[in-house]
């Protein structure tokens, strides 16, 4: 038994033997959007950005804070609360923070969560009902939360790509989700170009990072001496204009571009393409699903930390009196029994089928539903899996299997 405790490792074929699927799947290296509007915010003046956010109507500012051994988004009031010098070391099933003697506040890849809990709450009230005191008929009342305008500082390209997918799921179509929508509209997003990907990152291969290209209000690139800052929305441009910062120099812009190129080149993992629907569907009966099933704990951590997973359950919590009840929604997972329960039987009774459901939906089914894969390459499912199951290794091992004749 291997000492790393993750069980028999999947056989990973030589990367050069992996066929690329789809025609736009070469790892992308974007040139940062460092146009003439790019300004320079000196590190010593960085609190000015927080002050400007507050006077612009965002009393609540969330930023990355090192707490309980990871980076979590928490309310911040000054720049000095940010994780200066902190690096994250991520490998399958392991996350550690280290401190370096430098002032960099964003020299890390990510923590267990970013935007998902802010827009799609882990648990929330949808409605309540009470029996009328005379007629005993139920009287319904919608939960009306009014989220406080919130600026979020330090999110990444993968987080923005995931938010765009969640927006597709929750707010498009005939029945947009009012809870998600209200919270999404309350957010002002200040992204940071990723400069220090973790070993678990593979956003370059999904096309979602490491450089921020869309979905942000403002975006920062971190230099030793301060931040290059540019806008991605009308609100961002207005705020940037009000700050009256000097333009960035050509040398600073060039330095940031090189940092982005390095962050792309540094990524150690990848998916073998962005259109894996057919090759995965061709392998629904592959032996590899059973091998993953032996290692997988079916605990649902991957789905909880996945920034695009949206499955939830609804439940009622009646008061003991029986006269009042609350109807709640909470995160659920395709690794739970209840997720596939219908008519007194479980459609997916074992882990093999549950892992297969997760992976095929994420990488294949989403193409039909949302026009792209559901994976943005953030690597959270790899790091936060208690037994370190690596989606990129599992896909590679799966696709290395010959296609079997499908049982009729």
């Amino acid at each position, binding site marked *: 038994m291997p000492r790393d405790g993750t069980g028999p490792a999947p056989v990973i074929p030589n990367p050069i033997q992996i066929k690329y699927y789809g025609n736009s799947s070469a790892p992308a290296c974007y040139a940062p959007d460092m146009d003439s509007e790019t300004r320079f915010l000196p590190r010593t003046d960085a609190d000015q950005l927080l002050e400007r956010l507050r006077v612009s109507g965002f009393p609540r500012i969330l930023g990355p804070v090192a707490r309980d051994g990871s980076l979590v988004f928490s309310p911040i009031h000054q720049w000095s609360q940010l994780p200066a010098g902190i690096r994250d070391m991520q490998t399958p099933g392991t996350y550690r923070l280290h401190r370096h003697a430098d002032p960099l506040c964003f020299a890390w890849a990510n923590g267990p969560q970013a935007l998902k809990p802010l827009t799609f709450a882990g648990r929330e009230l949808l409605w309540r009902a009470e029996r009328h005191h005379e007629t005993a008929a139920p009287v319904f009342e919608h939960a009306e939360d009014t989220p406080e305008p919130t600026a979020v500082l330090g999110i990444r390209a993968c987080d923005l790509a995931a938010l765009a997918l969640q927006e597709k799921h929750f707010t498009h179509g005939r029945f947009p989700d009012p809870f998600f929508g209200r919270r999404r509209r309350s957010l002002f997003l200040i992204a940071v170009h990723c400069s220090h990907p973790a070993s678990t990152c593979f956003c370059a291969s999904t096309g979602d990072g490491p450089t921020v290209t869309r979905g942000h209000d403002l975006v920062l690139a971190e230099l030793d001496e301060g931040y290059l800052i540019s806008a991605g929305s009308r609100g961002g441009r207005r705020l940037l204009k009000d700050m009256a910062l000097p333009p960035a120099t050509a040398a600073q812009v060039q330095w940031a571009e090189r940092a982005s190129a390095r962050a792309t080149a540094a990524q150690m993992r990848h998916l073998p393409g962005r259109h894996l629907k057919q090759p995965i569907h061709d392998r629904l009966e592959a032996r590899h699903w059973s091998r993953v099933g032996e290692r997988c704990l079916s605990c649902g951590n991957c789905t909880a930390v996945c920034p695009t997973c949206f499955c939830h359950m609804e439940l009622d919590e009646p008061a*003991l009196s029986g006269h009042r009840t609350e109807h709640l929604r909470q995160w659920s*997972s395709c690794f739970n029994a209840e997720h596939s329960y219908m008519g007194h039987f479980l459609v997916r009774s074992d882990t093999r089928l549950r892992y297969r459901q997760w992976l095929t939906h994420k990488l294949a089914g989403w193409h039909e539903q949302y026009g792209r894969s559901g994976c943005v390459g953030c690597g959270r499912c790899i790091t936060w899996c*208690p037994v370190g199951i690596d989606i990129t290794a599992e896909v590679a091992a799966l696709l290395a299997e010959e296609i079997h004749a499908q049982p009729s």
Partner: protein
Amino acid sequence: MKPRISVHKFSSCDGCQLAFINAGEALLELATLVDIVHFAEAGPVDPDAPVDIAFVEGSISTQDEALRIRRLRETTRYLISLGACATAGGLQALRNFNARGVEDWSHAVYARPEFIESLDTATAIARHVKVDLELWGCPVSTRQVFAAIRRLLYGALPFVDNEKVCQECKRRGITCTLVTRGIPCLGPVTRTGCGALCPAFGRDCYGCFGPGENPNAAAMARRFQGLGLLPEEINRRFHFINSHAPDFLEEGLAWREDRP
């Protein structure tokens, strides 16, 4: 007529009965919805009265208890076992691993062991009679117990949490203790219901709510081995509060050095 309920104690620490007593005002409200006909710890004593719901705390560890639980079953419409002792034998079921257990500990603990009458094993209620619903936990919470009562009063099936503790951790934004600190948290194989109490305070789950649905205890144990735990330590992770829940029993035995 109001439904009648009773609360019975077998071999246990009485902690699960506190789910009722600590409910405070809600206990008074419960008393307006049901007749509490037997609940020795709270006052009323009538152990043989027929009831609609009997809550049973504790495991069966004496001959007297083995007879008493069968009598109770005959006078009860729904029998609900409460907590680790009633659902899996509890901490005291650790003695089941030692064939000479009762003799050994009764001599070690008591000045006059000849007064101790005990079965060789401490076992779950469901090993003796049909149980209609099991509420897991050490101890169970007021929320679990009152939610089950409410559902039964509506004539609906009680909802039983059986997903893993990890999901409650993630919903609450609690950082994973296993991944960030490498400590042997049992959350990925343990049933939720506690609100992820221990991880919320930075310590590893020790499985007091028993195995969740579809637990992969073997993969969990291999991970503990990877974290540096010795076989004996892995055995003790599984053979603790819910040692005789089948999934934990089997995995713990697999790591016993003296396994036959």
